[in-house]
């Protein structure tokens, strides 16, 4: 294995289905031991990109390495050292938890298999349920089984595709604690999610829309690179206020978040002028730091104009 600092280091990765470019010339570098968040709307190519990393799809263009192995030529080696958790639960529903883990452990020829299976059941709190069929489990438990299964061969890189979709908040938090423990032990994790709070727990982020990588870096870098100014409004008749704001020069996005309205734009002076024109004492106006969500909504709107 190469002594490279990067667990993932790819350039120009492209995938087309028919004449549709689903992943468009993406460059990505993920350092070893890092938790890397992958965000973007549905259909933006996250799953497709991950599948190319672990050898399930062949890129139409692009080169690079995964754990030092060539993503095009050394797919068999990559598979041995990567743990991939699919978006949809893809273990055998008619096998028990233990049988599923045992099967995967055999496929990877895990040394001291019995102990490894037992250990992974214990680590993820599955011992009492180990004889339950996987098909009978709820979303949160299925997610634990899947995580246990993709860790059993002690991979160096984890690729997690929307692991927390449909999982309750408590289970989500426990899941993330586990991910951080694993990363602390040196595992590299690439994880896709739609949750902003999860995105904020990643060391680095990338935002994908329509196959294009629109932003990447640490949370602070991503926020700063967007150069977005945001006003937060509370008060009555927010819907009517939103209508009167939309279309004004400098107002690029108006988004309702529960009882508040976020009004954002990249040109701070124009935005301030637009706000001044509609501002009244009925509402409370505050200039706030843009949230990750504001930034991503902005990126998505721009992407829609540029690519869709």
């Amino acid at each position, binding site marked *: 294995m190469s002594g490279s600092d990067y667990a993932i280091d790819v350039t120009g990765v492209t995938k087309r289905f028919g004449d549709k470019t689903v992943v468009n010339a993406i460059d990505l570098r993920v350092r070893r031991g890092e938790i890397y968040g992958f965000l973007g709307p549905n259909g933006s190519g996250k799953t497709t990109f991950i*599948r190319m990393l*672990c*050898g*399930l*799809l*062949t890129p139409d263009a692009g080169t690079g390495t995964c754990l030092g192995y060539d993503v095009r030529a050394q*797919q*068999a*080696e990559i*598979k*041995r050292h*990567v743990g*991939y958790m*699919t978006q*949809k*639960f*893809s*273990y*055998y*529903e*008619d*096998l028990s938890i233990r*049988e599923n883990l045992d*099967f*995967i452990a*055999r*496929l*990877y*020829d895990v040394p001291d298999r019995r102990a490894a299976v037992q250990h992974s059941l214990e680590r993820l709190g599955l011992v009492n349920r180990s004889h339950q069929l996987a098909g009978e489990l709820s979303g949160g438990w299925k997610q634990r089984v899947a995580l246990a299964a993709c860790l059993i061969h002690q991979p160096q890189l984890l690729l997690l595709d929307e692991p927390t979709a449909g999982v309750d908040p408590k289970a989500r938090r426990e899941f993330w604690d586990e991910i951080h423990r694993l990363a602390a032990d040196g595992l590299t994790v690439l994880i896709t999610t739609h949750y902003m709070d999860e995105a904020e727990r990643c060391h680095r982020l990338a935002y994908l829309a329509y196959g294009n990588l629109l932003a990447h870096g640490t949370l602070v870098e991503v926020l700063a690179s967007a150069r977005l100014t945001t006003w937060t409004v509370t008060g009555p008749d927010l819907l009517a206020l939103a209508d009167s704001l939309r279309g004004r020069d400098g107002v690029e996005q108006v988004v309702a978040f529960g009882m508040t309205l976020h009004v954002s734009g990249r040109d701070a002076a124009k935005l301030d002028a637009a706000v001044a024109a509609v501002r009244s004492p009925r509402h409370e106006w505050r200039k706030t730091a843009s949230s990750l969500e504001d930034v991503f909504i902005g990126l998505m709107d721009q992407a829609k104009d540029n690519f869709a």
Partner: protein
Amino acid sequence: MSARRFTFHRLWAMVLKEFIQMKRDRVTFGMMVGIPLMQLMLFGFAINSDPKHLPTAIRAADQGPFARTLVAALRTSGYFTLVKEASTEAEARQLLQLGEVQFVINIPEDFSRRLLRGEKPTVLIEADASDPSATGPAVSALRAIADHVFDRDLTGPLAPLRAKAGPVDFQLHAHYNPENITQYNVVPGLMGVVLTMTMVVITALAITRERERGTMENLLATPVRPFEVMVGKILPYIAVGYIQVTLILLAARFIFGVPMVGNLVLLYAVSLLFIAANLAVGITFSTLAKNQLQAVQMAFFFFLPSILLSGFMFPFRGMPEWAQWVGSVLPNTHFLRIVRGILLKGNGLAEITPELWPLLAFLVVAMTIGVKRYRQTLD
């Protein structure tokens, strides 16, 4: 690197997994036991037809003009095609045993002499009657030939020899199934049909099911190799195949009273090749099919010729040449001959070897296509 090569532990992982899944899937397992029993009842009846050009050997001790006339008459009847001349009884027997001929016609030494004396010489026809629907019509044709074969030779002073009952006597000696009981032929044949039907369908679903349930994505992400997946899915069903073989043999013996002359151990041993060949076809279909429905359709398209062109439904030699050609590619055709050969004729390994090679070739080709077609990516 071991990641690239076949390993036994990955194969074993697949086998264990398939066994557990099979154990949990009661409905399918029940069907695999139920189908043989149902088919045994359905196919208790046979379908007759009128096969012609049956390969025939002649053993002529008398080469005189009358003997030649008789042989010519047999040939023009359309039922008999002379393919061999046998000089000894043992040689004639051998030809029947190997299935190279359906009939041996024995013309005795004193044929012409006794004919001229009006003594009604006897011509012995030995028939391989293990498939009665093949021999029946030809035997009826013989009776008609006997009456008029010498009408042109026996003229003038010899005319009185054209007696009403005919100048010669044909004596039929039916080997292997002397009573012409159709079930004796159908029930052993059913073994191949049942195995073809269930084995192909069950494995045709094997990989498409993984794909439809989404488990394929996971399997592909592990180091498991195509060959390991396929063989791992085939091995457990060989056991099921043997359960079916046993069920049919028991029914054949105790319900239909089929005689079992040959070595059952040999039959069990060679069944392995046939079962594996069918499972390989199924698994190959399952790599080609997009979904489970397509897989079942493909299995059905394989099943039809296996039942119609193998010699199970219609006598093999009665089929047009193209159909015989298609038939001889199908595993069931050869297995049918093996089973009938062993059970009814008491054939040993030497006699059935010619039928084993086509089975083996079929298995290798099917498996190769399957492994080549198995997609290692989701592309």
